[in-house]
């Protein structure tokens, strides 16, 4: 078992590493990025950036370093200067970047002009990195500093500030969807082809194939706008709590930040997430329950004269829920993805919206951190699913 775990951990580490490299390359190889618009500013007379200013800005974003060096500094927090070994400094002269690239504008084949880097007027050497600020590296849990959203504040601050909001949303939604989906799925499977089953399968199909964003907008439409227009108590359509006090019919004036206020704001996004989840979960429970109910041991249990309730809950359900573990465990990181759309519709200040903001503002350290955290969560979810199998199904053994 411990050998199995060790092997799994190594595999997980490799997968996370590859996804880190892939997403880093994706964000950093593409031109544009944080310097978009700098050329326009340069031509603007009011600011008049000198070449030295540009070099400083490039150094701020570490764009003066070669990509592998930048990546190593992001991942490991190294190199920070010359290699110090045995009281001496090594490799201090190693060129690790270019402080002032020489750019020439060359005509391209289709008659346009293109600016290309043709040389380097001043290189960055390893010894120049001494004293430059650097993160401790992602591997030590330091995701660096935010570039734009909260300039120079640690990315982890940004994420930790948003985490409770996302958890508030997703944990509630997951809990509710489990509580609703499992009984629904069981009932529908036990009463297969009944009127309820037809209604349920149709609704679940609708829910599973309906886009989240449309659900969200529909809910705002019905529960915020139409209710408000009808003079009934309505639900606030956005944000996680009010800024100033507001009055609802019947409920009276509500102070911002009170439990009622927070609850009212949570209802709509949680409802959307829950419905989408219930549709998927319950269809799965129904399918796997039907599969199990056809097994011989269920017939045996019935033939023994056991009560139907015991047959279903003790014999069928326990086996039916085994494959459900995978679905459920993978819903944990997937909730983050599903929450992107929901959070964006309801302007919910959670991690999903943070990701969108980071992409929009080219705040790559934040985007990278979020992507990496999700990848790590997924990898751990896979492991968790496999280990849970071990607990619930004694037939499974890992060597």
């Amino acid at each position, binding site marked *: 078992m411990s050998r199995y775990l060790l092997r799994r951990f190594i595999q997980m580490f490799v997968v996370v590493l590859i996804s880190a490299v892939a997403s880093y390359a994706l964000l950093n190889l593409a031109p544009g990025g944080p310097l978009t618009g700098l050329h326009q500013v340069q031509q603007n007379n009011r600011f008049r950036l000198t070449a030295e200013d540009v070099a400083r800005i490039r150094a701020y974003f570490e764009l003066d370093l070669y990509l592998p060096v930048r990546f190593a500094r992001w991942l490991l927090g190294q190199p920070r200067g010359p290699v110090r070994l045995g009281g001496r400094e090594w490799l201090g002269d190693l060129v690790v970047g270019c402080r002032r690239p020489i750019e020439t504008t060359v005509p391209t084949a289709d008659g346009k002009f293109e600016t290309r880097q043709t040389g380097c007027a001043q290189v960055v050497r390893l010894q120049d990195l001494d004293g430059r600020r650097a993160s401790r590296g992602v591997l030590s849990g330091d995701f660096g500093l935010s570039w734009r959203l909260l300039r120079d504040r640690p990315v982890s601050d940004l994420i930790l500030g948003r985490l409770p909001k996302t958890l508030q949303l997703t944990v509630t939604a997951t809990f509710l969807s489990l509580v609703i989906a499992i009984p629904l799925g069981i009932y529908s499977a036990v009463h297969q082809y009944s009127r309820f089953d037809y209604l349920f399968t149709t609704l679940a199909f609708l829910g599973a194939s309906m886009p989240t964003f449309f659900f969200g907008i529909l809910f705002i439409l019905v529960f915020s706008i139409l209710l408000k227009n009808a003079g009934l108590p309505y639900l606030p359509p956005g944000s996680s709590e009010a800024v100033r006090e507001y009055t609802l019919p019947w409920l009276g004036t509500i102070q911002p930040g009170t439990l009622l206020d927070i609850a009212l704001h949570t209802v709509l996004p949680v409802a959307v997430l829950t419905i989408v989840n219930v549709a998927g979960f319950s269809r799965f429970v129904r399918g796997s329950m039907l599969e199990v109910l056809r097994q011989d041991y269920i017939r045996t249990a019935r033939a023994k004269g056991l009560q139907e309730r015991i047959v279903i809950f003790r014999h069928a359900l326990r086996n039916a829920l085994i494959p459900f573990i995978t679905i459920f465990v993978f819903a944990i990181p997937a909730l*983050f993805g599903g929450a992107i759309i929901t959070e964006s519709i309801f302007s919910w200040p959670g991690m999903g919206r943070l990701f969108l903001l980071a*992409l929009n503002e080219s705040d790559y350290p934040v985007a990278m951190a979020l992507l990496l955290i999700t990848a790590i969560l997924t990898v751990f979810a896979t492991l968790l699913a496999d280990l849970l199998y071990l607990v619930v199904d004694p037939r499974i053994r890992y060597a």
Partner: protein
Amino acid sequence: MTPTTDIASLAADAITTPEESPGRILLRRFSRHRLAMLSLCILAVIFVISLFARQLAPFTPHELAVGNYFLPAGAVDDETGRTHYLGTDNIGRDYFSRLVYAGRISLSVALLATSLTVVIGVLVGVYAGFYGGWVDSLLMRAVEFLATLPALPLLLIVSAMLLRNEETIPIPKALLDAVGKLMLLSPRDARQAVLIILVLAGLGWLNDARLMRGMILSLREHTFVEAARSLGASDWQIILRHMVPNSMAPIIVNASLNLSGFIVAEAALSFLGFGIQDPIPTWGNMLAATQQFMFDRPILPLVPGLPIVFCSLAFNYIGDGLRDALDPRLKM
């Protein structure tokens, strides 16, 4: 293509033609799935409307009626006498025309992306399943790896990166012209559509490849393949004549589910602002635009929202119907 459902004609069929062609069997079985048939009809209507977008839409999607913001549905343009069937949007563009053109774009994007995933997926899947080797292990590793990355954030990042550098990505002019013609866009605007198709297909083909690989692996063990080989058939003959036709069922089902997924994915990307951008109409970005006006005009979001839902549902139901129709174990 009227389905023969009444018993008399079925019986007659059974007597006169004891061996139905596979196509007819499929059609008969598919037509039993009432929701799938209904979906087919709805989609046919949407397709025809999109096909004749230019003829049906009274305005072009970019035409600005200055000052005529938020005209009510049915308002008539004074100068030309044309009707705004669904009114105008916040900057005076005809809503109905935009909706129709958007349909053409959204559907074309989904169709092209699906075709691309099928072609790449089948080619790679066949190669990996038949020859194995490094293509096979690379494919399987890639599939496993992509499963660890969350789909939507990945889609957003790739799409954001590509669209940000729209101009620098080389795309053959002929392709842009062709896609532009298909979607009634200028070649310049077609660039965005092409990039979105590439993003969707680029992340979508792995699943088709895995399906195809699985089918090929299981077919390889069948006796008819052995028979073909012993008759001296070449690899290509075996693949093209025997394996590909026999493995089309799951690929077709998956394709129709992909269509639904791509319609939603494109709409979601455009909705979040990482897909096709505003002057070009798509259902997704029209829906996003309505969000800030829906408090005064509550019906507005339904106009671009419902087509997305209908198309997504319809393709899903058709996939469901096809799955049932193509599954020989299922008695219908």
